[in-house]
């Protein structure tokens, strides 16, 4: 499962645009030299306007698109607090600190597999990048299942289309797509009998736990991209841990916790104590 990962760098990236793409969702495009990012990896950003000011820690964000030739990396984020708000307000042309790429990548599906990407909320961005690479490879036709509280929390089609020709949506309130949870849509997809389904999920913890349970029940492989509060993002603080399910079989001196930032963020869902 482990593939070679690009080298991490702590560099400056120039903001080439920031666009409001939905309700509280913004997309910032960063110009950064010689950085390659694999699908599922994330970066730690630090708006320079915050230097010498605080919030102190960086902003961990998944990468939602990469244009290697032009040296562009996109992040897609909801403005929820001071740091995301600061990022949104960085003027075009100004620099942000860019530490990355960090973490592991989504494992590539078997060539005959049907990838099903299940996302919710701010978990959708890494799936967009992953779906896009799958489609570009022209070997897979990923299904993208997306849930959100209401229509306003959904990303627009234009952002999702590069990742999947088969986007299915659910909203809690029925204001867009099917009313209800993404797990219903996932059940449907699995029951439709796609060949060798493999599920990749990223979103709120409760959603991923439900997806993991559902897959485990049907023996469908499932990979989840986890999120935890992060300080460093490169493994040194041991702050971002999650509990492993396989703790008995892992009498490692480090115990039964895995670091999301370097051991993940992507885990085989069966490894996690949901």
């Amino acid at each position, binding site marked *: 499962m482990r593939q070679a990962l690009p080298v991490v760098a702590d560099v400056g990236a120039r903001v080439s645009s920031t666009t409001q793409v939905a309700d509280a969702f913004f997309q910032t495009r960063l110009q950064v030299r010689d950085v390659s990012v694999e699908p599922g990896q994330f970066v730690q950003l630090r708006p320079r306007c915050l230097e010498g000011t605080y*919030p102190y*820690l960086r902003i961990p964000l998944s990468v939602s698109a990469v244009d290697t030739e032009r040296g562009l990396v996109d992040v897609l984020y909801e403005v929820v607090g001071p740091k995301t708000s600061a990022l949104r307000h960085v003027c075009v042309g100004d620099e942000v600190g860019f530490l990355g790429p960090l973490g592991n990548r989504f494992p590539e599906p078997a060539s005959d597999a049907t990838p099903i990407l299940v996302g919710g909320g701010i978990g959708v961005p890494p799936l967009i990048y992953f779906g896009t690479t799958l489609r570009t490879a022209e070997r897979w036709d990923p299904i993208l299942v997306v849930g959100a509280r209401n229509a306003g929390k959904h990303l627009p089609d234009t952002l999702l289309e590069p990742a999947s020709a088969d986007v299915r949506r659910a909203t809690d309130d029925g204001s867009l797509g099917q009313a209800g949870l993404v797990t219903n849509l996932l059940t449907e997809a699995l029951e439709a009998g796609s060949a060798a389904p493999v599920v990749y999920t990223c979103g709120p913890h409760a959603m991923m736990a439900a997806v993991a349970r559902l897959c485990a029940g049907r023996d469908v492989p499932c990979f989840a991209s986890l999120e935890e509060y992060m300080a*460093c993002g*490169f493994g040194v*603080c041991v702050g971002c*841990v999650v*509990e492993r399910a396989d703790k008995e079989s892992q009498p490692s001196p480090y115990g039964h916790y895995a670091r999301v930032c370097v051991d993940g963020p992507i885990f085989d869902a069966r490894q996690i104590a949901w």
Partner: protein
Amino acid sequence: MTDLTTNFAGIELRNPVLLASGTCGYGEELAPFLDLARLGGIVTKTITPQPRVGNAPPRIVETAAGMLNSIGLQNPGLDGFVQDKWPYLARLQTEIIVNIAAPTADLHRDMSARLEDVEGIAAIEVNISSPNMKDGGMLFGCSPTASREVIAAVRSATRRPVIAKLTPNVTDIVAIAHAVVDGGADGISMINTLLGMAVDWRSRKPVLGNVTGGLSGPAIKPVALALLWKVRQAVDVPIMGMGGIATAEDALEFLVAGATAVQVGTSTFVEPGAAANIVAGIESHCDNAGIARVEELVGTLRV
């Protein structure tokens, strides 16, 4: 060019900037970001007699100009450290200070005795100040008697310099400082984190799995400087100052207030090369100010 070499309790440091315990692991994760040989030294993550899995997550949360952590001394234990971590550390061209903690004074002695066989350790830093250890750490560091006992136990088992790491969560830090010096400490490092808590009012729950944690980062710098200055006036042993150091100017403030050397903690998370940048910054500030030796600055505060 300013001479940055610093003698700390007999340890010859290339410069007065070290990485703080718990914020640089055992060196490996930071190697991609900075040349550890450019630092004065590194203080390894606290090790305990037995391995510890640490506290339940969430273990960290950001606060205004700082962060809370409740890692809970996750570490591979003394044996795991010696077997798995030391070989890498031993090869580094920088001074390695090993930080230890244990539930009793006797166990501190045993650990120190065992480490006596490990070649190349520059000093032992004794963590009598962790707020995340229910069976030691701050429990000792809040009492002069217990502090003295623990340090004396370590002292009796090692010929290496012993550095006592103090907690700020006390009424009279000078009394603790006197106690550790009585116990035989060759140096003091301060401060460990302040006790803190974060609350999620909607869920009515503490944010940290462990309820409380330790506050670090720029927010605590004024507290660290005040306590450092108090201790500096009271004892004669050298002090490693820390607490919120993010820039070379921060480090220089600690030197002026009485620290012979400084440790950089939380800042490394934000800027993995922070400590090396601070070394460079100290050098250029001192050069510009015409300071021949960085040690001239130590304790020069005029009040």
